[in-house]
Each structure stands twice: as structure tokens, then as C-alpha cells.
């Protein structure tokens, strides 16, 4: 008799989702699905709005990563204006993007995943949360808060607001940086870098403890997609698309973002509101790839900053052969490397004398009827594409959200973890937590990917083929 286990919602991620595991008579997992359960439909309700509203509108997609949408949207609007923004404006936007990456990665590592990493997958679920972390290692929790605070403070210093700054505008930014603001931001970097290096050093000592998880948490051959610089280095704001396969061979390289539709197709499934992007030349679902910190580090020839390059070299030793790091468990490791990079690169950009240049905005009216903006959000490559009529009103929108790129990989990962850990005849909380935890590796932002909002309790139900509940766990 086949049965279905439903995990809803998945906890300690951003947004709402359900996992279902279809079990065979033997109790083995036959099928695993990751469902996005709510829908907001930004792509539809933006139609008819003036394109200049798009940055502010799409930034409201998310309370955690609004800056990512703000930047991708403004880049799409730059494209509609057909302008090249002033170099100083680009540097300032880069700083804001890196500050966003810093605060988001800090939240993922310190607050969402550290309960598993510090307290253990099978620890008491009543204590396996941020309060358990505070009790066991209060300094770790304080460090997480401080890194988030630094990221948010830099966003606020640049943009005037922490959550939805309006400083980035089509054509650049709306005011230049002042010396006192530069000094204030630079003053925060050393402390952030010290925390980041200490955390990285500490986490490296923990990694051997997670050998089992590293082998089973989304450890699979997929392609990796990200932006890279023209030299093939780590890139978060602009650059060109690169796709590597699981053996490290370049499948696509130096693809202009404007051509992304040649590389990426989008499929839909009836069990989720999240789209399923795939590598178009291989078709769906064979064209599975991953994005985000793991993909960016796998694709980059180098980071381009001193300590992050040392950390990148250490990252590559996680894989026994010389190929890309294939375990999704190592997203955590990659996130810490990127935190170091973000701090080093922000310092470099802030020390650039040109950063105080007053020319920060190109002004134009709409000169194209289609615009594409691509950047790297904390969770992966983010794409905004707009079409407008001759009056500047939006007629069509496509948003390919970072989390969505990982949809196929997340589904395959939960199947792998379920195969390894789930005993359908004896449902255990620790099993449930591991299935959730592999999703946390990707740090999905489902509010972005589904445009959902709200909060759900957690219920896991074991049902028989007739739909009768035969076992149940509830949380929240």
C-alpha cells in the first residue's frame, strides 16, 4: 500500500513550502516533491504600471532581499533607457549588492542553519532553534547579529533606509557618496572581517563531523550557472553567464545576459507555484543546474581578493577529485567564503578615490521596448525582463528568481536525503529535520520565488493510499 508523508511547512527557510514523500509498500521512498504552496503573481499585477515604478514594486517581493530585486530591476530599466551608467554609480551599486549578500548570508548561516550545525540534527527539536544556539554559544549568535547589522547599516548609509531604499534609480543612483558616509562604512569593515574569518576558521573544524551529510545532502552531478567577470572571476553585480558541468567542463561561457533565453528555459509542474528553470539545450528535466554560492565558487577562476582567494582554494579541497564541489551541504561553506569576499571587496571599493565622484546618474527617457537586468542575488542569479509600450507602461514581465533555478536540484536533493534517512514504517523527527535541512542548504527565499507571505505551523502526516492519516507529527 503506497503512502504519502507530508511536511508542511518546511521551517527555518524564507517563505512557505511543503514536502511530500511518496512511499512504497516496503516503506522506501518512491518519489519526493518540494511544493511551493502560495502565489502572489508580481509578474501579472505589474502589467500596466510605468516602468519607473518597477524597482520599487519588485523590491516589495521580499523583506529579506529587496536590494537584489532593486538592483536587477534598475538594471532592466537601464536597459530600457539604453544607457551605460556612470562608473561611480556602478561601484556604489556593487557595494550595496555586497552588503545585501553579507546580511543575507549571515542570516542563513547564523540563524537558520546554525541550530542544526551546532546542536545536531537529532537534538531535542524544542531546543534546536536560535534560543538553543544562544544558550550554547551566545557569542556565535551575537556575531550573526553583528554581521547582519553591518550589512544593513551599509545599505542604510547608502540608501537612506534599511529595507526598501530608493537611492538606486534607473540610470544610476540619485546622490553621490559623501566622505563622512564613506568613513562610517569603512570603519565597520575590520570588525566584520574579523568575525567572518573567525567563523570560517571555526566552521572548517566542524566540517569533518558532517561527512555523512556531505555525502548525502544533494551530492549529485549537475551543472552550475552563475555570472563571472570577463576574466572568469567571482562576480555578483554584472558580468557574463557561465555554465559548467559536473566535471568542471565549460558548457557555456561569456554569454551576455541579454541572451539568457538561449541558455535557460522555464518549465512548470502542477504541484508547485515555483517555476522549474532548466538548461535549454539539454531540455527538461535533464537540464538540471544549481546557482548561488556553491555555483559561483565552482564557476569562478578566482575571487580576486586576498583572503577570499585563500578560502576559495580551501573550498576546492572539499571535493576529492579535481572537479566542482558537488555536495549541496557545502553551500554553507561557500556562503562563508562569500561573506569574506563581500567585506574585502566593499573595503576595496570604498577606498577607491573615484567612489566620491559626483557624476552618478545617466538621464534618458525610454529608448527600448524591452529591457533585461541580471545580477547575482545571495541565493543565485536573478533575472528581470520587462517589455513596455511606447508610453512607458509595462506590457509583460518575466522574473527568474534565484531560488527558482535551484528548484530541480532541491527536488532531487530531498529524494536523496529521504532515500538515505527515511524509514516510512517508523517516522522520526530527526529524519524529518534532515529532509528540511537539505532544503536549508540552498537557503531558498520562497517569498521571492513564489511571491508568498505569511506563516504556517508544521504538520507531517503519514497517509495510506485511501488518504487516511496513519501517523502525524505537528510543530508550531
Amino acid at each position, binding site marked *: 500500500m503506497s503512502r504519502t508523508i507530508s511536511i508542511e*511547512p518546511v*521551517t*527555518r*527557510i*524564507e*517563505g512557505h513550502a511543503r514536502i511530500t514523500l511518496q512511499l512504497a509498500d516496503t516503506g522506501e521512498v518512491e518519489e519526493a516533491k518540494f511544493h511551493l504552496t502560495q502565489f*502572489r503573481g508580481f509578474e501579472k*499585477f505589474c502589467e500596466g504600471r510605468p516602468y519607473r515604478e518597477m524597482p520599487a*514594486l519588485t523590491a*516589495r517581493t*521580499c*523583506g*529579506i532581499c*529587496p536590494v537584489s530585486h532593486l538592483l536587477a530591476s534598475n538594471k532592466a530599466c537601464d536597459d530600457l533607457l539604453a544607457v551605460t551608467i556612470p562608473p561611480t554609480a556602478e561601484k556604489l551599486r556593487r557595494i550595496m549588492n555586497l552588503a545585501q549578500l553579507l*546580511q543575507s548570508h549571515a*542570516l542563513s548561516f547564523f*540563524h*537558520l542553519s546554525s541550530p542544526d550545525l551546532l546542536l545536531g540534527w537529532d537534538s531535542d527539536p524544542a531546543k534546536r*532553534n*536560535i*534560543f538553543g544556539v*544562544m*544558550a550554547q554559544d*551566545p557569542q556565535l*549568535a*551575537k556575531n*550573526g*547579529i*553583528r554581521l*547582519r*547589522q553591518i550589512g*544593513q547599516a551599509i545599505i542604510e548609509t547608502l540608501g537612506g*533606509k*534599511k*529595507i*526598501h531604499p530608493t537611492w538606486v534609480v534607473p540610470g544610476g543612483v540619485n546622490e553621490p557618496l559623501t566622505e563622512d558616509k564613506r568613513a562610517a562604512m569603512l570603519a565597520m569593515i575590520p570588525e566584520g572581517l574579523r568575525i567572518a574569518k573567525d567563523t570560517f576558521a571555526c566552521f572548517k573544524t566542524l566540517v569533518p563531523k558532517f561527512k555523512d551529510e556531505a555525502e548525502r545532502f544533494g551530492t549529485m552531478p549537475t551543472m552550475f550557472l552563475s555570472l563571472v567577470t570577463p576574466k572568469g572571476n567571482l562576480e555578483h553585480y554584472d558580468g557574463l553567464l557561465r555554465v559548467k558541468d559536473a566535471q568542471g567542463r565549460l558548457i557555456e561561457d561569456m554569454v551576455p545576459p541579454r541572451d539568457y533565453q538561449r541558455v535557460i528555459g522555464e518549465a512548470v509542474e502542477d504541484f508547485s507555484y515555483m517555476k522549474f528553470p532548466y538548461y535549454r539545450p539539454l531540455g527538461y528535466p535533464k537540464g538540471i543546474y544549481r546557482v548561488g554560492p556553491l555555483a559561483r565558487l565552482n564557476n569562478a577562476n578566482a575571487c580576486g581578493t586576498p583572503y577570499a582567494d585563500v578560502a576559495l582554494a580551501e573550498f576546492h579541497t572539499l571535493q576529492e577529485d579535481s572537479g566542482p564541489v558537488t555536495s549541496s551541504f557545502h553551500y554553507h561553506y561557500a556562503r562563508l567564503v562569500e561573506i569574506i569576499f563581500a567585506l574585502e571587496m566593499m573595503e576595496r571599493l570604498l577606498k577607491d578615490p573615484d567612489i566620491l565622484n559626483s557624476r552618478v546618474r545617466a538621464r534618458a527617457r525610454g529608448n527600448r521596448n524591452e529591457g533585461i537586468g541580471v545580477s547575482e542575488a545571495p541565493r543565485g542569479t536573478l533575472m528581470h525582463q520587462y517589455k513596455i509600450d511606447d508610453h512607458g507602461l509595462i506590457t509583460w514581465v518575466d522574473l527568474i528568481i534565484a531560488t527558482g533555478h535551484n528548484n530541480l536540484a532541491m527536488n532531487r536533493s530531498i529524494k536523496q536525503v529521504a532515500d538515505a534517512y527515511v524509514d516510512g514504517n517508523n517516522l522520526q523527527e530527526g529524519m524529518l529535520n534532515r529532509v528540511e535541512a537539505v532544503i536549508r542548504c540552498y537557503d531558498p527565499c520562497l*517569498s521571492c520565488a513564489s511571491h508568498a*507571505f505569511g*506563516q*504556517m*505551523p*508544521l504538520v507531517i502526516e503519514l497517509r495510506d493510499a485511501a488518504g487516511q492519516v496513519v501517523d502525524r507529527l505537528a510543530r*508550531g
Partner: protein
Amino acid sequence: MRALVIGYGSPIRGDDAIGPWVADRLADMGLPDDVEVQARHILTAELVEDLHRAQCVVFIDAAADIMPGELRVLPLAPDAGVMSTMAHFHDPRELLAWCEALYGRAPEAWLVTAGGAQWGYGHFQLSGPARAAVEPMIAEVLSLIGLDALASEPLRISPMLDGA
């Protein structure tokens, strides 16, 4: 810091904007240096550092469980039991509990809410009842932080209210 005032809510969901809107008005009033005012979309983890530095905190929010325009003032205590399952948004009592757990004390805290009437996406204006609640809300917050005398000063009217 003697007092921290945090107004929170979404600026594109009608009356949910009343928290940040009132916070912005308070910030425009030229409050003493030992009072900090923040307007936020949501309450997130790094706020704990600010709470820790404050002697008292006033949160300002909209409410859906009271009559539109009705004002409610509640004292808040730390409560780890209201823990969020994600990190997009934290209940103020959860952040106070973080503060207590990490720093050994939580500030004295209140939640001032006004009942809202409409919450739809893409609504950039306050409803009539919410608009009517703005001035009493400001007076209540000023009273809680010991600045009653400022409550009688005329309010600056924003374009948002004019146009509503």
C-alpha cells in the same frame, strides 16, 4: 539611548503602513537626541542590538483584530514561545526574548496599534479610520516616552494624507 521607537509595516498594503508612517512623522518632530525613531517594513534579527541599547522601546503597528481606527496600547514582555518559523519577520516579543537571552535584560516595551480597514496590495494610502488614528497614536507614543508636551504641537500633513 533612553527610548527607541520602531514603526513597522508594509508601505504598499494600505493601513499596514501606519506604523512606519507614524514613525516618520515622529522623526520629523525633532525629538531629543536620546530618542531614536526607526521606520521599518519588518522586524528582523539585527534590531536586537538596538533594543539592547534602549531603556524603553515603543513598537507601532497596525492591527486587524480591533475596530478600524481604534487605538490599543499593550505592555510587552519577552516571549520565546512566539518564535517565527522563518526569518522574514519576528514578533516584537521574540526579539525582546533574544535581547534577554543574549544580553541579560530586555528593555521596558509597549506595542501601540491602530485598527486598520484595508490591506490590499498596491494600496499606498491610509483609510479614513486609520488617518483619524494617526494623531492620537503620536500623542500616545510621546506620552509613553515622557514627551507629553510635544503632543500638542501641530502635525505636519504629508502628501499621502492629503491625497487620501
